């Protein structure tokens, strides 16, 4: 069928569908019924007023998804997910929002306090009713001030930087979105990415024009708008020739969500001489001590270093979620392009993480660095899984991989699964791996100097993670250190 015909058909289907399916008649409705079907996909697209090409893309993804099977190669154990038992658009609130901070779980507030999060931000994070709409009170506190956010926005506009939600970008810059969406992670890529392509609701869009160095961490701005991140996020960042951007996703504060399943997709495109630094702090609810109620986090993050001398650096601190399945990767296409992956993954109690990276060397003299620090406590299982692939034309490619695991207690596990494939004889690949336990000697030494046992553990673990934490933007590094401590509470003694 010709493309135009197909589109006409789809438009007809969509308009006629209104009569065929009850809920379609009420386009103002804020929610779609439970379950996943073509109609739900159409509903989402229609709600967002998307162009036909995007609906078509979503539908192709959905149809492809139906033919796929959930991957089972991760070292993860969880009960089967019932995809029909979930809401894919605007899930109704199950319980009422707390009216004030007094009604919020004191445990949660304690954690916020330890992280040093300002009161107003605590209210937003805890989902206190109306908290996000409150007028800004403290103008000096960067994170708190709407006026500061506005200033930022103006500054970005002056530079020609586009930074908005992807829904907004689809309306305002459809040509850019269409040019790049799905070019790094195709809709057929993998089970979870394909699901995301069909039903993604929102996410961020960034475009840095040629030669522009983004004057600020996009984190500060993002964080203010982070209260409704959603279940199926889709983020697209394009750094045009010679540009630079540092982007920070997530939040150190523990985040609860009524949706157990999260499947985000992040695509990064770096053109000639462009650099993207992408930092993540993931602290979704890990579940209780028995792992009950935690988030399942299946994320596809991939960067295309398309241009010569382009560079993408992923830094992640993963402390949350019951299940983490995540491999931020770099396709090193441009000659002399550089990929980096710095990761700290902490699992405690019943948490399971299967995380790592893929470095695909295509261009000449491409270089990649992988530094992974896995910390496992309680009954948790922590797996590093990484692929380094050198293709035949990647003359002079180099990779350095360092995987360190730290065990706390004797009921947890650490696993390292490196895959190395080299098709070019000039490539140099180095892999180092260590596994250690926090020794009784170290703990006693610290305690003899006056540190309480938990503070000693936190100090030792922070030391262990130092190489990665120092890659984080300054403003986040301090919080991340505290987060490391909090994640391991109750892991000793």
């Amino acid at each position, binding site marked *: 069928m010709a493309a135009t015909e197909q589109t006409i058909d789809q438009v007809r289907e969509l308009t006629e569908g209104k009569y065929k399916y009850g809920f379609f008649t009420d386009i103002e409705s804020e929610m779609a019924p439970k379950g996943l079907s073509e109609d739900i996909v159409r509903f989402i697209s229609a709600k967002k007023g998307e162009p036909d090409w995007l609906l078509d893309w979503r539908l192709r993804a959905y149809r492809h998804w139906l033919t796929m099977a959930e991957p089972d190669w991760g070292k993860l154990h969880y009960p089967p997910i019932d995809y029909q038992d979930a809401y894919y658009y605007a899930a109704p609130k199950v319980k009422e929002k707390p009216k004030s901070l007094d009604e919020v779980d004191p445990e949660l507030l304690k954690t916020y306090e330890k992280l040093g999060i300002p009161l107003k931000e605590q209210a937003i994070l805890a989902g206190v009713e109306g908290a996000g709409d409150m007028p800004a009170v403290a103008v000096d506190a960067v994170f708190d001030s709407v006026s500061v956010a506005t200033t930022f926005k103006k500054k970005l506009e002056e530079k020609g930087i586009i930074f908005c939600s992807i829904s907004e970008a689809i309306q305002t810059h459809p040509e850019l979105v269409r040019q790049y969406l799905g070019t790094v992670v195709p809709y057929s890529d993998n089970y979870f990415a394909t699901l995301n392509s069909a039903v993604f609701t929102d996410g961020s869009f960034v475009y840095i024009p040629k030669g522009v160095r983004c004057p600020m961490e996009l984190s500060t701005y993002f964080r203010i708008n982070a209260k409704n991140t959603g279940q199926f996020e889709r983020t697209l960042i394009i750094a045009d020739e010679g540009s630079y951007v540092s982007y920070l996703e997530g939040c150190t504060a523990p985040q609860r969500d009524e949706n157990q399943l999260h499947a985000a997709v992040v695509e990064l495109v770096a053109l000639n001489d462009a650099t993207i630094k992408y930092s993540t702090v993931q602290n979704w609810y890990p579940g209780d001590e028995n792992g009950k109620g935690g988030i399942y986090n299946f994320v596809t993050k991939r960067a295309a270093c398309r241009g010569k001398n382009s560079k993408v650096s992923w830094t992640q601190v993963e402390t949350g979620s019951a299940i983490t399945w995540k491999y931020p990767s770099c396709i090193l296409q441009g000659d002399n392009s550089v990929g980096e992956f710095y990761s700290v993954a902490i699992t405690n109690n019943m948490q399971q993480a299967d995380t790592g990276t893929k470095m695909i060397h295509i261009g000449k003299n491409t270089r990649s660095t992988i530094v992974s620090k896995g910390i496992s406590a309680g009954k948790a299982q922590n797996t590093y899984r990484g692929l380094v692939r050198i293709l035949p034309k990647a003359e002079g490619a180099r990779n350095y991989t360092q995987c360190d695991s730290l065990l706390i207690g004797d009921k947890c596990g650490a696993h390292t699964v490196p895959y190395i494939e080299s098709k070019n004889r000039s490539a140099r690949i180095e892999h180092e791996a260590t596994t250690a336990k926090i020794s009784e000697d170290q703990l006693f030494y610290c305690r*003899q*100097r006056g540190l309480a046992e938990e503070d000693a553990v936190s100090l*030792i673990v922070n030391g262990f993670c130092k190489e990665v934490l120092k890659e984080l933007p300054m403003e986040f590094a301090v919080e991340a250190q505290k987060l490391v401590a909090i994640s391991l509470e109750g892991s000793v003694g």
Partner: protein
Amino acid sequence: MPLIEIKNLHASVDGKEILKGIDLTIDAGEVHAIMGPNGSGKSTLSYVLAGRDGYEVTDGSVTFAGVDLLALEPEERAAAGLFLAFQYPVEIPGVSNTTFLKEALNAIRKTRGEPALDAMQFLKLIRAKAKDLSMTDEMIKRAVNVGFSGGEKKRNEALQMAVLQPKLAILDETDSGLDIDALRIVAEGVNALRSPERAMLVITHYQRLLDYIVPDVVHVLAHGRIQRTGGKELALELEAKGYAEFGADEAA
């Protein structure tokens, strides 16, 4: 009132009794040395006083600065003013000396109800103390004991002691692994901390260290008990005669 009073202290490791009734009293301002053959219980005594796991006190009491020392956690003992200079200082990769000591000092200050030092105040303090021990800025920035030579590790222990200003410093075989120059630097650092408010317990196998840190009282520990107590001349006597008179298990 004595600074520390140890009465009839019995302690076991893995069910084996090592200390078999130690009686020892040290007043503020005094430096005591404990000498003894290998396996006599010298290091066990230092670990028991510092509260290490696995060292079980089966009888006796220890009163330190008026409190029941044995009831305290190791970190509480540190806050109360007890410091142990380790025979084998432990490495902590990725944690700088400065960070480690700042955290430790502020934890102790917090327990004592004193305000924490900020980064600048602390840096000033540690730099001054490091200078006294001929330690460079580079050394205090390095990770705790990582890549340090034997002598540097012991100097680092002396630095920690100088920063934490304990009431009682226990020096466990501080001379082991030191050449004569390193020994002198460390001893000078320790001597600089001698004061009427502070006591020291110097544990050593050899008399050599006591040429540099001259004790007021010398005890001989063998078979889990203090066998003899005397002045600094006792150390010289032991150096000449060895521990044979105490039925030493030296050969073991």
